């Protein structure tokens, strides 16, 4: 459809559709999961499994993350697709493995404003999922900031737990996402 309404008039938006099963040759790209270079200072692994309603891992999902740098600044560096090996672009994309797992190299995001709980923004796509989903991955470390977060405060303890990552022994982050089921992740609309 061609939009013919003049600029400044509200226009109905285009509806989303499933990513389908065959995105693997089109969307993932080399270094897509390296938001920070693996050997750069402060680099950590963020990983987890994406599961469907019966608990099975999803081998054909795609996850994108977008986050602040460790000092809380919003990255503005170009090169989110064409990795140059050192710029921190804040953006990552990866497909899940046959085991439903994803893995990013990144840094811990800082708070974008003083006192705010740092989190990583997530967009999720999958075969069988008719449209995208948005969620957040909160860092587990600053309990006072987590307690003060208005979004987390509006949730039950079980719902809240689906949004907060676990700190691993090597300083990384572990975070599973459940599209459905007992541990169904909380998803957001804006």
């Amino acid at each position, binding site marked *: *459809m061609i939009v013919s309404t*003049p600029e*400044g*008039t*509200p*226009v*109905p*938006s*285009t*509806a989303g*559709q*499933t*990513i*389908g*099963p065959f*995105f*693997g*040759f089109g*969307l993932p790209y*080399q270094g897509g*999961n390296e938001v920070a270079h693996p050997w750069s200072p402060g680099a950590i*692994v963020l*990983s987890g*499994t994406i599961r469907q309603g019966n608990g099975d*891992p999803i*081998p054909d999902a795609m996850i994108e993350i*977008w*986050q*602040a740098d460790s000092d809380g600044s*919003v990255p*503005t560096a*170009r*090169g*989110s*697709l*064409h990795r140059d090996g050192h710029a921190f*672009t804040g953006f990552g994309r*990866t*497909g899940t493995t*046959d*085991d439903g797992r994803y*893995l990013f190299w990144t840094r811990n*995001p800082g708070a*974008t404003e003083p006192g705010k709980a740092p*989190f990583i923004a997530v967009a999720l*796509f999958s*075969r069988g*999922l*008719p*449209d*995208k989903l*948005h969620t957040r991955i909160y860092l587990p470390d600053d309990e006072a900031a987590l307690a003060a977060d208005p979004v987390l405060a*509006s949730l039950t303890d079980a719902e809240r737990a689906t949004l907060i990552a676990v700190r691993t022994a090597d300083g990384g982050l572990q975070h599973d996402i459940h*599209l*459905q089921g007992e541990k*169904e992740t909380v*998803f*957001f*609309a*804006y």
Partner: protein
Amino acid sequence: MTAPEAATGAPETPPAPESLLAAPDQATQAQIRDEIVAIEEAHARALADGTYEGGRTLLDYPPYRSSILRHPTKSPKQIDPETIELTSPAFGQRDVAAIEADLTLQHAGEPLGERIVVRGRVLDGWGRPVRQQLVEVWQANAAGRYIHKRDQHPAPLDPNFTGAGRTITDDDGWYEFTTIKPGPYPWRNHRNAWRPAHIHFSVFGSAFTQRIITQMYFPGDPLFPLDPIYQSIPDQRDRDRLVATYDHDLTEPEFKLGYRWDIVLTGAERTWTEPEGGEH
């Protein structure tokens, strides 16, 4: 797939991904069509009595069988986006080579099929251009076959066609791809299931919340009423927005047929500001 194996492997042995592509019940097309019509009628009733709550693509859409275990059962929580969600990854011309917008030039020879150009604008919810942002496409070849290893459709691959492209919108929000019209293809949602011809689109806005992946269709496709993916959008006006318009003025004599398709992102939460200078 580029994701490396994670260090801590899960103990279970999951089924091979391609084995998941066939729905277990293999309903008939007539059964699927009945389910589609029932949901459409419920939508029309909800619209008429004012109880329709919006959300243009139904996440819970059983005629699309693999969605049954993959849609959230709770409504998404409505929240105010925060700083990071109101911004978007920055892409620039450096990320994309010009040739990536022409899917017919990526190999030594010419791909087979009907050469087309797809041109349109990316706009925000106020009709304002989304400038200097990434648009990605992927599609089947003219015979309806994807180059993807999990595509088992016994139609020929084309050694001169991969079917993936990228471009960056210009300062008026325009994008343009030259490609081959994709063929319809069978899938295993139900017996004799066929997808209408489509091109997958992935688009970024000026806010991460505007991120969209969708599909562009071609006008007059007889498979529209039968396809549970196209029909997962319950409102005909919303479906129509996914269909390109044939444009004879865009058609080039003795070379390629022209289609126009504009993409409108949700909302315009952030006050519009002129993009900062830099890469163009």
